[in-house]
Every structure is written in structure tokens, then in C-alpha cells.
């Protein structure tokens, strides 16, 4: 069993607290990704799990064992570093075999494991080379291989793809996901790239300033962000956040943005919205929820017309990002390339409110969830 629990884990450097009382339960064989802007404490958290950073307070359990003061090597973990940290003076084979040798594994076992891992990662032809000759992608594979041969229960990956070029990052994402399925171990992965988080994770932990903001599956995180930070961090282009006033007309709530009235769906929890009647909130609408025409599969009750002025168009091929101005606010819409518009055009789009978000402007917390 390699479930991991963090109980009120925190880390201080002198007077500076970088991780505040984190509580997190990671299930066995789960692929969990810590994501957040740089300096949010995600790497520190990972390094505390690895035992590279002393735990200032709280408890870390792997399985049922308290690991706070167990040295790294006895935690049954393997780690992949951002700069790969391959030993420059050893061949790839020796790099991979090193951990096992220190554990006094018999040579035939070492050899078999190294060969197997090399085969899985497709680096057999590199085994007798030194890291100096390898490209970034190849080093990445070797680093993964070095972690694999140890058969650890927990894999820790610290921004492993951030030094690769965009194309390679795409392929390696898929490979790491496959590897997780294949190895059947717990993966804890740190990244600042929300695309990596969304595509690979079973669950995502969003962190900011040493606090966990939300822990959830990628889809839930996208659909039901608990606060404005998560809403803004997940999804690209960012969710549009607009000041709106909540009104109630004929038993139905609506949000008024810049004089335009957008109906709120009945599916929303009215008991939660009611206290905000007549007050200003932040309305969140994802760029893809603006349409040039009302789509057929959406209840027209949940849509409203939305007028804005086009500031800039960014054709992406399959879609167009419209940067628009409405009521002095910047916003972005993702529309189909069929939608022809020029800079300066006043356009009226259909806003699909089914997935709209409402946030309290003071606490920044979600009103809906």
C-alpha cells in the first residue's frame, strides 16, 4: 500500500512560511498533480515527501508509517528532477543500476531490470553512453528509467517536462501517462503548466502561496472551481471574470453585466444566490461559452445576447480567439473561424450561462459551490 497522507504539513524557513498546514490524502496508485504558479510551495511539498526538505510541522504518512524523520532512501520513493540530475560520470546503464547496487541487489536482477526498463523507454541503444552525449528528451527518459528500475511505490516528479521543447513535451506527456498505467504505482507530479495537469492527472491539487486551493479531478476543477484563483488558473485562454449585479425578476435570477441582462440557469442553487440579490458579484464565463449563434443543444432559457467591441482577433486555425471590450473590461471569446469579424466591429454573441460561475468579490470564493 502506498497511499500517502499529509496532515497539517507545513514548512518554514526562519520567519517565512512557505507551506501552510497542508492536508491531503493521496490514494494508492493515484496520479496526482500539484499545480500552481512558481513560489506556491508545490515543489517544497514534493521535496518534503521525498525527504529532501525537513518537515517543520505536521505529519507525513506513507502507507501507515510515519515518515517525518525517515531518510529519503528508506521511504521507498523515486524522484525525477527537473534538470534530470543524471550522474555525469556514469554511463546510462550505471546511472540506472546505481540505486539497486547500493541496495546490494544481485547482478542478474539488476541487469534484467535495467534492460527491461530500457526496452520500455526505448533507450536500449543509449545504455553504454554518458549523459553528456544525450539530448534533453533522452535524458528525460533515462531519468524516468532510473526511477523505474527501483520499483518504488511512489514516483515523485518535479517539473520533469519543463526543459523540453513543446513537441517533445506532448509526446512525453502521453508516455508518462502510459507509464503510470503500466507501473501501477503512486505518481506525485509537480508542474506549473495547467495543460500537463489537466491531461495527465487523476486528481489535481491547485496551490497558491503555500495553501491548497482545491483538490479535485481535472473535469471538476474546470467545471466547478471553488474560487477565482482556481477559475483563472485552470483553462486557457483564461476564464473571463466580469463584475455583474444579481437581480431577481419573475422568480428568476439574472446577472447584469454592463447593462446587459444574462439569465442564470434554474439548475443553480438559488438558496446560495439569494443572499447576493442586488449586490455585485464576479461572473465567470469561459471563452468557449460565447457563441456566434445559439447552439441547438442548449436550452435557450439559459442563454443571453452579449454585445462587445472586437479589439483583436487571433486565428488559431480550428477556432478564433476574439479579444473584446465590454463595459471597459477585457474579455476573450473562442468562436468558430466561420465567424467573420474585424477589429473595431461591434458584435453580439450568445453567452451560454449553463457553466457560468459566480464569485463573491470580497472573499473570492465561489457562490455556487
Amino acid at each position: 500500500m502506498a497511499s500517502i497522507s499529509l496532515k497539517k504539513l507545513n514548512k518554514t524557513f526562519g520567519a517565512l512560511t512557505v507551506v501552510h498546514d497542508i492536508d491531503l490524502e493521496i490514494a494508492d496508485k493515484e496520479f496526482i498533480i500539484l499545480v500552481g504558479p512558481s513560489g506556491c510551495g508545490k515543489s517544497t511539498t514534493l521535496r518534503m515527501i521525498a525527504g529532501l526538505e525537513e518537515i517543520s510541522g505536521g505529519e507525513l504518512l506513507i502507507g501507515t508509517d510515519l515518515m517525518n524523520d525517515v531518510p529519503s532512501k528508506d521511504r521507498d520513493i523515486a524522484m525525477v528532477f527537473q534538470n534530470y540530475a543524471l550522474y555525469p560520470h556514469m554511463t546510462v546503464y550505471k546511472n540506472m543500476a546505481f540505486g539497486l547496487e547500493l541496495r546490494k541487489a544481485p547482478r542478474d536482477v539488476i541487469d534484467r531490470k535495467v534492460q527491461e526498463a530500457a526496452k520500455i523507454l526505448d533507450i536500449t541503444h543509449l545504455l553504454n553512453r554518458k549523459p553528456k552525449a544525450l539530448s534533453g528528451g533522452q535524458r528525460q527518459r533515462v531519468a524516468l528509467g532510473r526511477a523505474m528500475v527501483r520499483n518504488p511505490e511512489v514516483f515523485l516528479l518535479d517539473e520533469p517536462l519543463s526543459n523540453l521543447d513543446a513537441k517533445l513535451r506532448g509526446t512525453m506527456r502521453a508516455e508518462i501517462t502510459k507509464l503510470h498505467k503500466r507501473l501501477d504505482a503512486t505518481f506525485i507530479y509537480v508542474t506549473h503548466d495547467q495543460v500537463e495537469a489537466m491531461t495527465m492527472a487523476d486528481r489535481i491539487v491547485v496551490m497558491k502561496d503555500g495553501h491548497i486551493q482545491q483538490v479535485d479531478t481535472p473535469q471538476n476543477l474546470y467545471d466547478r472551481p471553488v474560487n477565482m484563483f482556481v477559475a483563472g488558473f485552470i483553462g486557457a485562454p483564461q476564464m473571463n471574470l466580469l463584475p455583474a449585479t444579481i437581480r431577481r425578476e419573475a422568480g428568476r435570477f439574472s446577472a447584469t453585466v454592463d447593462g446587459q441582462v444574462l439569465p442564470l440557469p434554474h439548475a443553480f442553487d438559488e438558496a446560495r444566490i439569494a443572499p447576493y440579490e442586488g449586490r455585485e458579484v464576479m461572473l465567470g464565463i469561459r471563452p468557449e461559452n460565447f457563441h456566434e449563434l445559439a447552439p441547438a443543444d442548449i436550452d435557450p432559457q439559459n442563454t443571453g445576447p452579449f454585445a462587445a467591441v472586437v479589439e483583436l482577433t487571433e486565428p488559431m486555425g480550428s477556432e478564433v480567439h476574439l479579444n473584446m471590450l465590454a463595459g471597459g473590461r477585457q474579455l476573450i471569446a473562442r468562436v468558430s473561424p466561420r465567424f467573420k469579424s474585424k477589429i473595431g466591429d461591434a458584435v453580439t454573441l450568445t453567452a451560454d450561462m449553463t457553466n457560468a460561475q459566480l464569485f463573491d468579490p470580497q472573499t473570492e470564493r465561489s457562490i455556487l459551490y
Partner: protein
Amino acid sequence: MQWLEAMWTKEGKGIDKDAPKRTGLALFVQIFAREWWELVKLNLLFILASLPLITLPAACFATASICRAMVEDRNVYLLRDFSEAFRRHALVATIWGIVTGAVLALGIYAVATYGAAARENLVYAAPLTVSLVATVFAGLWAMHFMVLSVTAEARRLRDLLRLSALATLWRPLPLLASLAFVAALWLAHILFYPVSVFMPATFNFSLGLFAVMFGAQRAATLVLSRPAEASGEKEPF
């Protein structure tokens, strides 16, 4: 200091998986460029191991076994693999060393005698030729035997003897070329004497055996992969 750090983190060109494998001399040079430092260490190891003269053949075998791994581009743990191979081949190698030494000594003695005689009487040219060919054959056979016994480890002695004889008859030229290379190494040492003092200490032995291994390797794999032999692969010694 940034460029100092780059020393550790700079990415290399990468190694193309599908790059056509080099052959012949180019491959030899490539392996040498990559493993030269290992060869230097191997050479020291060889010298140390063969200091009590009787262990010389076993040290030869062990060195050849390491060189084989280099030729095949396999991973080598120098000290450990060397001592393992040394122990495994010790018995056979020592016998091989004594027999080969005796046979070659006999052969050379014969060549020398007949050669001296042939200068006076041309009739002796015939036995001279025979003994010369026999000596060269015995030498090559012995070399091939060494190569084969470190390559195909689980073979019966009888098989090895037969196969090495076969390899000698089949492809003697690459090995002859390697031996010429070895001779050139030593000649260089003698010719440039004061400058080349450190040659034997640093690479003459290991590079020589590496060349032998490299030359004979193809013959070894050829005879070992003959259909008739492939079936007898896993027979115990």
C-alpha cells in the same frame, strides 16, 4: 561561473537510434574514442593481474572478456567484471597459456632451425614452410580459442577447440590484421623509445587485446551462429 554550470547541464546532440551502425575501422575508432579512458584503466589492471607471471594467461582472458563487452557496446564494471572473468577462465587460460607457449616455442624453434638450414640447403625450404604455416596456424588458433572461450561461455572444451580451428581456417585475415596492429604498437614503443616510455603502462596491452577481440569477433559470431552450432547452445560445460 555560469559556463561552469553549463558543463553539467548542457544538453548533448543526442544519439540517433536509427543511425546506421558504423563498421570496420570507423567503428573501431568510434569505440576507442569513447572507451579510451577505460582502456587505460584496463591496461593497468592487466599489468597488475599479470605481475605473478603464471597469471598472465588468465589476465589475458579477463582483459579479452572486458574488451568483448566493449566491442559489443555493453556496460562494463571494470574491476568486478575483470576479477569475475579472471576467476572463471583461470584454469582453462593457464592450461591454454602453457600449451600455446610450448607449441609456439616449438614452432619458432623449428622455424629458426629449418630457416638456418634452408639457407645452406634449399631442400629444407619445404619443412620450413610447413613449420612456418603450422606455427602461424597454431598462433591464430590459440587466439581464436581465447576469443571464443570468452564469447561463448557455456561451451564444451572440445567444441571450442573445434570451432576455433574452424574460425582460423575460415577467416584468418582480420585476426592477422589485428596482430599486425599489435606488432605496430610495440614497434612504435621501441622506435620512439624515450618519448614512448609510458605506452606499455597506459595502453599497449589493453589496446592490443581490444584489437584482437575486434578482429576476431566477426569470425567468432559466424562460427557460433552456424545452424549446426546454434542448436547446441545451452549445453552444460
